[in-house]
Structure formats: structure tokens, C-alpha cells
């Protein structure tokens, strides 16, 4: 049993309220990504789980055990730090085997273990080197090796890829995911990079301002964001938000009336929605005078190679549209934005998603 549970965990640094009552349950064997902007409390939450910081209030459980007041070494966890935190005076082999050595594992067993994890992470040829003789990617592998050598109840990773260059980050992202699936241990992975969170995790917990916004599988985080913050934080480019008002059998957005299905319309009216959210890939460009499109003009065109991002200025705000790679248009040109209202979600005045999109299918157009 190695599920992880935060029970009303509060953390204050002096007058600064970093975590306001965090409740979070990570099932056994799951990979959870704690996602949020800097200062949202995600790293603090992880450090509390590790035992490096004490919560001001609340409890933390690993498995069935209350570990709130335990020393880090008694929690049966392993941690990978953003700066790798290797021991500079020790060789790679000594670094990897330190958690075993400190627990008095016999020499022979330790040697076998070092060999095993070194093979998994392909660092067998580096065992006699010291950390400062390694590249960033190699240090990262050593840090991972040191974490997995001991079969802990939970892995804690604090932005382990942030110090790598973009290319290496991509490779390591895949490798860490494979590694964690293979080990099957509960993993808590802190990141501010939504792509990492979505691609690697079984569950994503989005945090903001010291509070948990939503915890769900990646696809639900993307398709059914609980509120405006999650909707705009996840996705690149982020979800488009436009102010709307209710009209006859639909909503008025971008200067046009968008008709809605009856049940959704009533739900919108009941929730007093004020904004509409649209993913860029759910929008398409059209002739500006075509029926049922929002008329606007091109603000920016960004060719990405495989597609083109078109930012269109509408009445009420700008929206990003994913257009085909062969899209051609000049800044200032008139253009229309078309979308299916079934793919839109609606927010009420406090930013809660009141009406979700109808389905996540049919995105392929």
C-alpha cells in the first residue's frame, strides 16, 4: 500500500499563506502531476510530503501510515530534485548506492543493485566519475538511479526536467514515463510545464494560489476544466475566452448570436453564465461574411510548420485559431471564426465552469 493522502494540509511561512487546506488523494501505483504556476504551493506540498517542511496544520498519510511528524528517512520515499542534488564528493556509484549504504545493505547486494539500476538508466560507463564530470542529462539519470535503487513506497520529483535543455527534456520526459510505468510505484511529479503534466501523468492536479483547482485524468483536465483558471492554464495556446450575454435560444458573443441546443441553453440561463471558452482547435477560419461565423480581422499569423496559429481580433477580445499549414493571410485582413457551440464551455461570474462541452469526440474535422 503506497497511496498518498493530504488531509486539510495548511502551510504558512510567517504571514504568507502558501497552502490553504489542501485535500488530495493519490491512489496506489498512480503517477500524479502537481501542475501550477510558480508560487502556487506545489513544491511546498511536495516538500511537506517528503518531510523537508512541516505543515502548519493538517495531516499527511503514505499508505495507511500517518507520516506528518516523521523524519524524511522514516517515510520510505525517494526524491529527485530540480538541481539533481547529487553528492559532489562521491562517485556516481557511491551516489547511487548511498540510500542502500546508509541502511546497511551488504556490499554484494549493493553491487548487484547498482549494476541493475545503472543498466536501466544506461549509465554503467559513468560509475567511477564524479558529478561535476557529467553533463546535465547524465546527472539527471544518476539522480533517478539514486531514487529507484531502493524500491520506495513513493517517488517524489520536483521539476526534474527544468534544468535540461529543450531537446533533452523531450527525451527524458519519455524515459521517466517509461521508468515509472515499469516500476509501478506511486509518483508525485511537480511541474509548471503543462505539456509534461498532460503527457506523463495518470492524474493531474492543478494548483493555484495555494488551492487545488481540479484533479482529474489529463484528458478531462483538458476537455472538462473545472474553472476558468484550469481552462486557460492548460493548453497551448490557451483556451479562448470571450464575454457572452444570453439571447434568444443562444448566447451573444463576438457580435453575433450563437444558437445553443435547448438543454444547454437552459443550463446556461440557470447558471447565469458570463463567458464562453473555446479551444483553438475547435475553431476554424472562414470567410468573414459567411453565415454563423464571428467576424473579425487578423491580428497575428504564426506559421508553426505543421499548422498555422491565427490570432483574430473579434468584437470582445482576441481568439487563437488553429488553421491548416497552408493558411495564408495578411495582418488586418477581414476573416471569420467558425465553431460548433457543442464544443464550447461556459463560465459563470465566479469563473466556475457551469456548462461543459458536449463531448470530446468529433474534434477531428
Amino acid at each position, binding site marked *: 500500500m503506497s497511496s498518498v493522502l493530504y488531509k486539510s494540509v495548511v502551510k504558512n511561512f510567517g504571514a504568507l499563506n502558501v497552502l490553504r487546506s489542501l485535500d488530495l488523494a493519490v491512489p496506489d501505483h498512480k503517477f500524479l502531476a502537481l501542475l501550477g504556476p510558480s508560487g502556487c504551493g506545489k513544491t511546498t506540498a511536495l516538500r511537506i510530503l517528503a518531510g523537508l517542511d512541516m505543515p502548519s496544520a493538517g495531516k499527511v498519510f503514505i499508505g495507511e501510515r500517518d507520516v506528518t511528524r516523521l523524519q524524511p528517512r522514516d517515510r520510505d520515499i525517494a526524491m529527485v530534485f530540480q538541481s539533481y542534488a547529487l553528492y559532489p564528493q562521491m562517485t556516481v556509484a557511491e551516489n547511487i548506492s548511498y540510500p542502500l549504504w*546508509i541502511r546497511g545493505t551488504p556490499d554484494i547486494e549493493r553491487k548487484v543493485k547498482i549494476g541493475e539500476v545503472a543498466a536501466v538508466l544506461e549509465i554503467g560507463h559513468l560509475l567511477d566519475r564524479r558529478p561535476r564530470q557529467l553533463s546535465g542529462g547524465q546527472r539527471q539519470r544518476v539522480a533517478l538511479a539514486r531514487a529507484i535503487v531502493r524500491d520506495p513506497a513513493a517517488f517524489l520529483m520536483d521539476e526534474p526536467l527544468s534544468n535540461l535543455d529543450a531537446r533533452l527534456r523531450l527525451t527524458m520526459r519519455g524515459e521517466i514515463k517509461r521508468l515509472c510505468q515499469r516500476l509501478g510505484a506511486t509518483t508525485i511529479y511537480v511541474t509548471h510545464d503543462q505539456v509534461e503534466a498532460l503527457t506523463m501523468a495518470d492524474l493531474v492536479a492543478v494548483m493555484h494560489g495555494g488551492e487545488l483547482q481540479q484533479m482529474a485524468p489529463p484528458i478531462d483536465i483538458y476537455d472538462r476544466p473545472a474553472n476558468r483558471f484550469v481552462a486557460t492554464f492548460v493548453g497551448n495556446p490557451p483556451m479562448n475566452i470571450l464575454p457572452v450575454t444570453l439571447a434568444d435560444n443562444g448566447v451573444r458573443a463576438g457580435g453575433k448570436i450563437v444558437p445553443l441546443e435547448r438543454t444547454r441553453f437552459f443550463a446556461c440561463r440557470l447558471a447565469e453564465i458570463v463567458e464562453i471558452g473555446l479551444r483553438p482547435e475547435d475553431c476554424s477560419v472562414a470567410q468573414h461574411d459567411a453565415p454563423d461565423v464571428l467576424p473579425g480581422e487578423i491580428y497575428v499569423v504564426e506559421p508553426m510548420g505543421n499548422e498555422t496559429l491565427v490570432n483574430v481580433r473579434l468584437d470582445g477580445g482576441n481568439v487563437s485559431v488553429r488553421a491548416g499549414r497552408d493558411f495564408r493571410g495578411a495582418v488586418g485582413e477581414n476573416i471569420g471564426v467558425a465553431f460548433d457551440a457543442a464544443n464550447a464551455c461556459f463560465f459563470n461570474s465566479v469563473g466556475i465552469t457551469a456548462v461543459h462541452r458536449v463531448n470530446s469526440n468529433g474534434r477531428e474535422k
Partner: protein
Amino acid sequence: MQSGTQARKYRLQGAGLDLALPYLMLAPGLMIVLGVLVYPLLDGLKASTRTYRYGSPISDVGLQNYVHLWSDAQFLNSLWVTVKFVALSVSIEAVLGFALALFCLREFRGIRLLRTVLIIPMVITPVVVAIVFRLIYASDAGMLTALSEAMGGGAMQILGNPLNAFIGLVVLDVWEWTPLMFLILLAGLQSLPQEPFEAARVDGAGAWRVFADLTFPMMRPVLAVAIVLRTIDAFGTFDQVFVLTRGGPGEATRLVSIYGYDTAFKFQQTGYAAALFVTIGLVVLALAFSAIRLLRRIDAS
């Protein structure tokens, strides 16, 4: 045409000054260094090869002064006393300084005040420190005697007893210079990265293992520099001994600095004293170099 020539002339003049300026600005400092460091050093080297009478050189004796040193029982004894004094004081200072630095690394109420207070002994003039310790050690009205008598004992003989006087001197040095060790080591500790220590706590290391496996190895270079600095400095200890015991009783606290001073100014053997100090300088230099080389070897392996 004319203005073109004019412009070139100005540019050349400007360039000339630009080239000379660095040397001009260096010149005053260089003159001072030559005058107060290099000249006395060379003059001292010259003096060490001569014999003096009534303060004037009377003959060149080559390296004879240097050779004579090694058969001079008083010099050898003073060297031995110095080595004992340096080894004892510096090692106690290193251990105490390290312990204090580790303690003061924690953050708690009043820590800034404590850090400041711990620096104070180092700031006090050495002669003043020596006078204070003389008062503490004095056998008739000293603090130790007073304490001893209050507890029903007799007068404490510190400066009159060879062993006690030596220990008293070491205690004085430790009191005055532990703060320097503390300061250097605290700065070193504060500059260490935090993450490896947190990683070690998660990996299962207790306080002692964290110290033995991380703190100490990572601090070794800083510790070595601090010890080398203090060793060089301790070899030259003079004022405190001069005020406290003048080298006595007997030769118990006669460091080479005191013996050299006596040779030069009491016995007027200027050339011999110069040779003595040059020798000590070389010994200290050799010590420092070998310490640093040893450190490099440890680091490289």
C-alpha cells in the same frame, strides 16, 4: 584638409595618453609595494649573510649564520615550542570554530547577536588581550586565584609554572583566534548548496552521517584554507607572548619570534636574527605549499 590633419593629431595624442594611463595609475601603488615590501625583504636577506657589531655590519659570512642555527640548542628549543604551540592552538581553534559555525548555521531568535558577539575577541588589539589575560592569570590578585580561594584552594600558579604558562598561552590564542576560524567556516557553510543535504535526509542519513558524508567532505577546501591561514599567522605570534611571559618561565613559552627578537635587540646579533627569520619564513612557506598540494591531491583523487 587642415582640419583632417588636426583631427589625426588629436587622436594620436589621445591614444598616447590612453596607453600610458594604466602604468601611471599603477605607479604609486607599485612604488609603495617596492619600498615597504620588496626592499626590506632583500635587505633582510643581505643582512642574514653578515655579522654585526654595535649595529653595523662588520663582515660577510655567507651562509654561516644559517648553518649555525641548526646547532643552536636555544633555537631548536624555540622551534619545538613554536611547533607545539601552533599545532595545539590551531587544531583546537579548528575544532571549536567548526563546532560553533555549525551551531550558528541554524536560524533562531538572537542568532545575529550571537554571531556578532562571537567575533569580538578577534577585533580586540592583541596586546590588550594579553594584558587582560595577565590579570586573569596573576598569582596574587588574578581572577583564577580569586576563584580558587573562594572555593577554599590556594593561589593559582599559571605564569610561574612552565607547563601552566604554555597552556595559558594556548588558551589565550584559542580565545582570540577561534572567532577567525568560526567566521571563515561559517561563510563556507553558508555557501554550500542546500539540496544535497535535503537529498541525504530523504535518502536516510541522520545528523551524524550528513556531517561525515556531506558537510565535512564539502568543507574540506575551506577548512584547509582556514588552517593554513591560521598556521602562518600563529608562527608569527609575538605581542601576546611578549606581554604575557616574555618567553618565560625559562624557555617554556619562548617562541621563535621571541627568540629572534631577543637575538636581534637584546644580544645585538642582527645578522643571525635575520637568518633565523628567513629560515622560519621558508619553513612556513614550505608548510603552506605542501598543505595546498596535499589538498589538491585529495580533491583530484
